[in-house]
């Protein structure tokens, strides 16, 4: 079975490095990273990842705009998206649930569990390395 590939779109360089390490070490997945929404849209279309982990709050193009573009592009509309957000208010959570995403993970996350959370939301079998 080929190794799953996840595209991580987050403008926070440090956090992106940490998540990348978590997914690589504990999920056994390949991780592509993008530092902005625009970069993420380009990589999603080009690399066709198995899933996208998308930060909501980003400058220039925020995560919801990126999601809208992903869902509007036939090349990326079938790629499952998990939102990564520091917003934890119920109104925000309810809003995200209506967006057609595979799931929402809130910051700060447990680095040892984030891979399990992603696998569960995507229905993947976790391959512990």
């Amino acid at each position, binding site marked *: 079975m080929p190794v799953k590939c996840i595209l991580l779109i987050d*403008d926070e360089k440090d956090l992106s490095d*940490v998540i990348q*390490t978590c997914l690589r070490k504990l999920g056994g997945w390949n991780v592509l990273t993008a530092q902005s929404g625009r970069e993420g849209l380009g990589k999603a279309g080009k690399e066709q990842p198995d899933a996208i982990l998308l930060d909501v709050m980003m*400058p220039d193009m925020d995560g919801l705009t990126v999601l809208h573009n992903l869902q509007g592009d036939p090349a990326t509309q079938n790629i499952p998206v998990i939102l990564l957000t520091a917003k934890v*208010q119920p109104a925000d959570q309810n809003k995200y649930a209506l967006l057609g995403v595979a799931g929402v993970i809130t910051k*700060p*996350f447990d*680095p040892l569990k984030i891979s399990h959370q992603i696998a569960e939301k995507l229905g993947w079998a976790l391959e512990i390395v």
Partner: protein
Amino acid sequence: MTQINRGKHENTGLEQQIQGVQGRYEAIRQNAENASIPTQNLLAEAITDLGITLEELQVTAEELYQQNAELLTARQDLEAERQRYQMLFELAPDSYLVTDAKGVIQEANRAAEILLNVPRSLLAGKPLVVFVALADRPSLRTQLAQLGTSAFKDMSPFRKHVHKEQAQEIYIQPRDGKAFPAAVSISVRYIPETKKIASIHWLIRDVSERVQAEEGLKRVNEQLESRVSRRTALLSHLNAELQESEERFRGAFDNAVAGIALVGLGGHWLKVNPALCQLLGYSEEELLRLDYQAITHQDDLEQSLNAVYQLLTSEITSAQIEKRFLHKQGHAVWVICSMSLVRDKQGQPLYLVKQIQDISERRAMEQMKSEFISVVSHELRTPLASIRGSLGLLAAGVLHDEPATTQQMLDIAAHETERLVRLVNDILDLERFETSKFTWDKQWCDAATLLQQAAEVIKPLAEESKITVSLLPDTQSVPVWADPDRLVQVLINLLSNAIKFSPRESTVTLTVQNQVEQVLFQVQDQGRGVPADKVETIFGQFQQVDASDARDKGGTGLGLAICRNIVQKHGGRIWVESALGKGSTFYFTLPIPLE
């Protein structure tokens, strides 16, 4: 003996006399027949004449008898009539008195006896005036005097001997009793030949009950009039109160701060007050041509109609909803709309009363607060996520075979911890400055010295970026009334920003200038500049020119907000003048106190 009996007796005497004469005639005629004297013829003639006379006498006697019988009948009729009148007089229900011309009582009937409470035997001979109340006596005396002099010519044409006076009302004073009102009718009998008064007939009727009834009626009438008067006054008062109430209502309606409206069941505006017109931007005429639905935000229409439905079905008696109206200029206006339904006496719904309160500011504040919490939450959670993630991986030992990644995670943890510390400090500073408990240690200090202190603190950052920090003037002392630590904090924040956004090997100039009433500070850089639409907002919390500045430049997004807070707490003002690509100059002033 009565007249009739006397007539009978007289007739009988006459008959006896006639019979006596007849006897003597028979005796004379017998004697004449028996005599034999020569005068016999003369005697016979005399006797014959006597016989004839006797017969005539008998005829006359008979006629007299018949006349006497007729007279007797007439007398009997007269007596019967007199008795009837006497009975009528006696049994009359009203008091009847007969007086002479001077008013002295001659006769009184039984009713008068009772009315005046005096036996008839004692009434006769007494002046009627003594049975009249004192107040009415003078007028009665006058009336009697006038009757004596005037009235014959006014006699009734039908009863020539009777003069009738108008009925009048006087107060009768009975013996040992209380005076009472009486209706008195007076008839005067005259002697036609002498034209003198024969008698005066007084018909007196007690009218106490009628007068009482009249007085009662009068009292009732007065009470009624009084009640009508009071009622009229009450109505007038109520009318005035109603008018006043209407004026108060109109005043309250027109001058209310909140919008008030009456809305028909179909949603059309029936009445709107000036506050509502102002809130929605329409004139009264324009608003009355619209309906409620037309200017309700589409997303809030269902909620509004549902509330009205619940009022109409009596599920609720009043409703309060937060909703948006559409301003005439198109933007939404948030309001609290309180409504209740007015029904008629039969319970049929008439119209809705709505009070509409502008909550735009509150909603904006809530929105701002929510956004601030959201931003703070994000700003705190993001470095925390990095720290927790990196340390979590290290602690779990999953990186033991990757020393480079281990070091990277340690660096991330340290770096993000620093960021978190700065952020927490800035948030706490802002919070501290806002509270009244914070003590501002204001004192006279030398601004030039404070500039040097700030420049010294910022020197490593400036050297790292090869930025020159220039102080002007470099020696002049400028006294300033300030909390020195906080003032240095402002200067460091401004210098730090200037250095971060300036190109390498450029100059940041720090100037202080003593003006007449204030001290002016300037921090000038040669950086990228601030866009015109940001020159105000950058002093807000988490309002960087670029959202990535917080990460790239190591800022928290709170530095300028803290600067503004400190300057304002000193009574000063802070602003920026900038040209994109050429640089910015941040200014702030501190007032010089008079003492």
